[in-house]
């Protein structure tokens, strides 16, 4: 049983990432989409919750000129997004 958390807001404008710390369970997944992908920028990384897998949607990174260092953040395509919603039990959108 796990949850996919979708974040579409920049971490510099919204507190979703902080709230997420008390909202995730071990084994949950986080997918950054839209302006959420700006969390891939260096200084935001320290706020990521532990024990969860965080990825960014590649198309939204590319369109914004963000190239997450692969060691920090894995990117997935839309097919990967679909697969994550299918393999987890529920999706929560944070906006």
């Amino acid at each position, binding site marked *: 049983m796990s949850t996919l958390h979708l974040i579409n807001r920049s971490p510099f404008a919204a507190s979703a990432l902080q*709230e997420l710390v*008390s*909202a995730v*369970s071990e084994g949950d997944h986080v997918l950054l989409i839209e302006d959420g992908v700006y969390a891939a920028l260096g200084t935001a990384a320290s706020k990521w919750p532990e024990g969860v897998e965080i990825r960014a949607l590649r198309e939204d990174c590319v369109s914004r000129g963000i190239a997450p260092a692969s060691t920090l953040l894995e990117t997935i395509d839309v097919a990967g997004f679909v697969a994550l919603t299918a393999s987890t*039990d*529920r999706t*929560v959108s944070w906006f």
Partner: protein
Amino acid sequence: MSSKSILVIVRHPPHGSSWVREGLETALVGAALGQPPTLLFSGDGVLALLAGQQRGALGQKGSAAMLEGLSLYDIEPLWYDRYSLEARGLTLDQLMSGCQPADIAGMIARHDVVMSF
């Protein structure tokens, strides 16, 4: 209707947008269909629970009256995130009656469907 447990999370403050009202209306419809959802306030959503709210500009209805009536529809307690409340310098005695602190991670994991407003 097959039975799934539904969690409604409200994460926006009242009056500045229609999110609170729309989240509450969704919860009320769930209750009217015989399955009261769990209702959780997190982030700025906890501000919707403040006691002493009034109507807004142009006489626009707020959400406080709706919130106070939810127990009639078996939507209770009004769950809130205690960290969000603390971060805003607020305490439980400043909120309307019927509020209770929640373990958010556990609450999300226990529900089949989560709707966010």
